[in-house]
């Protein structure tokens, strides 16, 4: 096991950040922590990277206890905080050199690990880190977190505020790193990224709702789910919310994801109802549940 968390709880003055959290991450796994802002993801990262003490429970990272062997952990993990935390007044190369030095290594020694990522930012290596774009900052931060060849990589919301193209590139990089036997724990508020992980934990209000592979989590969705569309989105949502048999109504892109509370649900009934609400172009078809649907259902 690369990471093993058992019964961790943590509260700040009167806010409970984490409540009895337990999970395990296998070696070489890409594990995702999925949850909205304020779910406790960053607190969990801080505990696992030895920056914070848990109130209760214990955790083991790369076979070291986070409290007793914190010094060894700092040598063998890479951490990329959610907020850009490199020296903005140093250039790309200087930042990388600096972090290599404090980990007692050199860029050359582990260059093969960061090569793929570094060549993308290498043309700007004399530019100050503060002057980089969001995507480049993330790539640099990832390089710095990898420079000492860590066994476990912690990435706290690495793609928040990054454009879609860079996000995709970033995930491709993570997939490649995983092949080099690095365990990756990544948190994200984006449900679409969840499907790229090997396993995910859905977390909300400091509690884990479910842990499984993205495919199984979706299969757990208890009800058939329908895409509903009509000419007037706003009125459609209002009408569905007012419908007496509704179970859940969530806008989802150009559709509304709808589930019904009855087991013998007939879409024609709903269509008839919506027509009485003066909606036209009504389309109702069954669809597959996504992780977002599952999350919403579990978080209810």
């Amino acid at each position, binding site marked *: 096991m690369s990471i093993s968390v058992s019964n961790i709880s943590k509260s700040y003055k009167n806010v409970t950040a984490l409540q009895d959290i337990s999970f395990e991450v296998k070696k070489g796994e890409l594990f995702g922590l999925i949850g909205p802002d304020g779910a406790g993801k960053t607190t969990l990262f*801080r505990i696992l*990277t*030895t*920056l*914070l*003490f848990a109130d209760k429970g214990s955790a083991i990272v790369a076979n070291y206890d986070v409290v007793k062997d914190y*010094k060894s952990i*700092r*040598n063998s*993990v890479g*951490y990329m*905080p959610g*907020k*850009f*935390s*490199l*020296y*903005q007044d140093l250039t790309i190369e200087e930042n990388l050199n600096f*972090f290599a030095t*404090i*980990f*007692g290594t050199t860029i050359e020694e582990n260059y093969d690990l960061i090569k793929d990522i570094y060549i993308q930012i290498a043309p700007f290596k004399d530019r100050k880190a503060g002057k980089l774009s969001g995507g480049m900052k993330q790539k640099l931060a990832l390089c*710095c977190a990898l420079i000492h060849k860590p066994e476990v990589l912690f990435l706290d919301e690495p793609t928040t505020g990054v454009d879609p193209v860079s996000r995709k590139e970033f995930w491709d990089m993570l997939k490649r790193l995983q092949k080099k036997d690095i365990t990756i724990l990544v948190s994200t508020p984006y449900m679409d990224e969840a499907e790229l992980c090997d396993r995910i934990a859905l977390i909300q209000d400091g509690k884990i709702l479910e842990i499984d592979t993205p495919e199984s989590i979706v299969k757990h969705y208890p009800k058939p789910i329908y895409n509903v569309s009509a000419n007037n989105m706003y009125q459609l949502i209002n009408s569905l919310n007012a419908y007496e048999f509704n179970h859940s109504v969530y806008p989802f892109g150009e559709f509304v994801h709808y589930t019904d509370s009855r087991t013998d649900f007939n879409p024609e009934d709903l269509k008839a109802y919506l027509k009485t609400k003066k909606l036209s172009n009504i389309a109702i078809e069954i669809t597959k549940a996504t992780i977002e649907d599952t999350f919403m259902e579990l978080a209810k």
Partner: protein
Amino acid sequence: MLPIIFVLPLLQLIILSNAATFEVKNIKFGYIDNDHTSTSRALIAQFNASAYFNVLTNFPSEAVASAAMLKGEVDVVLEIQQYFERDLQKEKHTSLGVTINAIDGAAAGVENVYVTQIIQRFNKHLKVDLFSPSDKQVQPINIETIPLFWYNETLNYKTFMVPGILVLLVTMITLFLSGMNIVREKEIGTLEQINVTPIKKSQFIIGKLFPFWVIGMGLLTIGLIIAKLIFDVPMLGSLPLMYVYTSIYILVVLGIGLFISNFTDTQQQAMFIAWFFTVIFILMSGLFTPIESMPKWAQILTEFNPIKYFVEVMRMVMLKGSGCMDILPQLLKTLFYAVIMNGLAVWSYKKTT
């Protein structure tokens, strides 16, 4: 940033040392001459001749003089009563009225001394002029004191102030920079990244503080050069001794700065606390006001003031030429302070958040 660190304090040294003077000059002087005799005019002439007084007006009455003082037009009013000359000659005794604006008590005291000195000098000449030889037997014996001002013979104010202001600059710059530095890392978030690295507490702290130690020593060097070139302050003592003391002193200041940054979360908070302590330390350092004239409790408090020791040492070494043994008490206290402050700072610095 680096030019600012060096240029501003040195401008401050030059401006402050020239402008912030305790010498009371250009005193606005007015008089009411009710006598109108040659003696009274001679007395006024004495004031006119003095470099300290600007003789402005001859007030017709006391009421006009009071009104002028109220408006701030005059600082000192001398009132010569009627029959001033006659009384002097007949009764060998008379009195003068002196009114001084004492809103600034210290200045009023100095002005009083100047006025008294001029009148005394006038008095001495008068004795020679007025007394006839037959009076010689009854002439009182006069004791005259001739002061000799050691270590600052000409009572040059700048000689006294420049070493003190230099202390102030070295202290302020190093305290503010070190106090804000680690807080700044907290603010930008770089500290979080650093804390996850295997870097040791002591390595990090030394790495953070050493540049400021160098800057402090650099400031001292440039300040001393300016003191010599522009103000011609005497440097009697040994320069290496001054550097040895300063190098220990800066450690104290850096320790305080680090301590502050451990207990604050933003640069604003750090700045505020650093200011609070610097103002207290400076006003209680003996830089501007002598410690001997402070109340007993305040004198005890100054024992904990590192700036006090630095001011003392700078003045002793530069002006008096004190040697290592003379400043040993200050040196030991500062060293003790440095150990305590840095110990506290390192102890309170946590690599966890």
